[in-house]
């Protein structure tokens, strides 16, 4: 059965985001050519959807079409490209995304009614209920008895970030060790290319957003390949929550590159089916990422490691 038009457009939007992410990782600049075949390889799809996504990007003045030559990047800087990726993300899940982002930023409270959200986003009830349904399917909100909706805890403070890493250290290790872990080799191969491309970017050229995209995709892959359905569910929902958070501070470039090398080493072990080793490497990787700066420091005083008690 053919896909409905809206769904097809949605897929093209997702692919368009991916194309721009690859362009960003490859350090492409204004006027650089985007060969269909290489983007088809990098995104793991045939050239037909690539062409449609290119057309969509052309409609938005992100790419430029030149007869007999193909598509060329029309944006000036890496920043413009990352802003555009975000704009596409927003278009994808506009209200759901805004609701989640506003909650993560503490612009709206932990319990909301559909009416309050309709007023805030100037949206009809059906649109708000659809957005809440999207968030509910991801386990990010739940409907309370009556008309209220309650948000799950967000990753919105240094202590929450630390608890998120504690949770992942336990669960991601188990996800790999669970019987019947099967690595999706095609996705792993694509991710490996993106990781290598990230590492090959000249010094000073990598972006935290580029790292974050690959990082979440990699850890989601690990979760989705687990043989344990409950670990799979909990971890993928948690990674969606991570995606919504803007509170995770970017690490210095040295650590971003080091963490990307750790991803590759874990992938190596998973591909060799050395699951014990991969699980240990995951723990080391997450522990290294868990290093947190002192919460407060002043001359003469021992630095405060953790935030104030609730």
């Amino acid at each position, binding site marked *: 059965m053919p896909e409905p038009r809206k769904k097809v457009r949605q897929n093209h939007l997702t692919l368009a985001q991916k194309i721009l992410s690859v362009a960003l990782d490859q350090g492409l600049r204004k006027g650089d050519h985007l060969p269909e075949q290489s983007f088809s390889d990098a995104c793991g799809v045939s050239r037909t959807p690539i062409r449609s996504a290119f057309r969509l990007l052309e409609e938005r003045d992100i790419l430029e079409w030149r007869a007999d030559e193909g598509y060329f990047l029309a944006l000036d800087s890496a*920043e413009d490209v*990352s802003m555009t990726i*975000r704009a596409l993300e*927003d278009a994808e899940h506009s209200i759901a995304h*805004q609701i989640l*982002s*506003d909650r993560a*930023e*503490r*612009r709206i*409270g932990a319990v909301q009614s559909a009416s309050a959200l309709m007023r805030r986003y100037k949206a009809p009830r059906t649109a708000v209920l659809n957005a809440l349904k999207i968030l509910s399917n991801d386990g990010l909100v739940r409907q309370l008895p009556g008309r209220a909706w309650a948000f799950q805890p967000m990753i*919105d*403070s*240094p*202590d929450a970030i630390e608890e998120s890493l504690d949770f992942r250290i336990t669960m991601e290790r188990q996800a790999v060790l669970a019987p019947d872990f099967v690595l999706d080799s095609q996705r792993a191969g694509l991710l490996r290319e993106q990781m290598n491309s990230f590492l090959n970017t000249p010094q*000073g050229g990598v*972006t*935290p*957003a580029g790292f974050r995209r690959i990082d979440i995709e990699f850890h989601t892959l690990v979760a989705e390949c687990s043989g344990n359905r409950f670990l799979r569910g909990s971890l993928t929902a948690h990674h969606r929550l991570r995606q919504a958070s*803007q*509170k995770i*501070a*970017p*690490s*210095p*470039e*040295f*650590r*971003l590159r*080091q963490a990307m090398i750790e991803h590759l080493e874990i992938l190596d072990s998973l591909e060799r089916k050395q699951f014990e080793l991969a699980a240990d490497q995951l723990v080391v990787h997450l522990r290294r990422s868990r*290093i*947190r*700066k*002192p*919460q*407060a*420091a*002043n*001359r*003469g*005083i*021992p*630095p*405060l*490691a*953790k*935030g*104030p*008690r*609730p």
Partner: protein
Amino acid sequence: MRPSPEIAFFPEASFGAALNCVGIAQELQKLGATPVFICHPGFTGVFAEYGFKEFHLPESPSSSDESIADYWQDFTNTHVPHFNLDPLAQLDTYVEPTWKAIVDTAIAVEDDLARLLAQIRPDAVVLDNVIMFPAIARAGCPWIRIVSCAETEIPDPAVPPYLSGLAPENKAEAAAYSEAYETVTAAVHRRYNSFRKKQGLPPLPAPLFLENSPVLNLLLAPSVVRYERKTPLPEDRFVFLEGCVRHESHFEMPRLPVSDGPLVYVGFGSLGAVDTGMMKRMIDVFEGIQARFLVNVGAMSEAYERVPDNVHLGSWFPQPSVIEQADLVIHHGGNNTFCEALFHGVPSLVLPYCWDGHDNAQRAETVEVGRHINRANWTADSLRSAIIETLTDTAMRQKLKKVSGKMQQNRGTEQAARKILGALNGNSIAP
């Protein structure tokens, strides 16, 4: 000396000094040296994230996360009210207890520091602190002093007293302040000198706690804010740096429901962030201004329940990259933040609460690169006006553009790294 000289940085346990040293270490690494860091407990991993090897001073056996949290709670309860006092009134309430704590720390870490230095066997030690550690003088290699506080830390009759917040022309107040400072710090200074004596170091004249390096002293004081000294510092041992701004990850603006208007960065250091009452009052004012505000709330993000649409709260920002994109910085006068704002040509609104913040607030206003706001008596209207007037002050912006151009042409981090290596090689360090 090794082919790649090993330079041990020992910054005090504050972000300003730590990150200032990171900037210089990044440049030393490019020049082929091997910078390493001696870390206070709590800073573990901060330097490793930038790719530097760390050596750790052990935690005191009696300290635990719990006891340190209690300490900070007491510190906050005691000192937040003192932050609204003027510099003279802070001498008894804040400056003296802080010096006591600094001397306690210096005494406590002495043996461990000596042990670490014997393990590292560096070719030079770079000390970015306000007090001398005898182990450094005895390390058997040259040591270099970084003054990452305001220039007032090195006294001169024509320079206002350290931490006074006074202008050079306030001679009478300066004399009274200096006298009060010496009186208040006399007991802790005697204690420190007796510690030095036991460790084989000569005493220091009151009220100094740190001597100048016989080899090289680097002052984080861009020319726009420098004082005309009565006795110029000898150029063969003293180098003024045009800022000291490290390379950081690019900061990507978070999505805000309000997506236009000038960008204002607000950061009062991790210590200033504990005053959540003041920060909430400020955020209420920000809500009514057509601008976007990035607010560094440090450890206290849980304290904020309602955040306006034009405000983003964060517990950590890669500050140089944020300030580069900002139109205004509202800060406490920390020397590193102040210099980063000057480096990127961004005006400052300074609300100092302690230490050299007072000196930088006075200097920013005097040399017209920012404004000084008294944190004790601002109102919503006065703060709003100050923000809008500073954002639209084209004369200040033009001046800052020139300041920034000069600083970026003479990057302090590169200059510091070259001077450190030059000093090791016995070359002249004169500019």
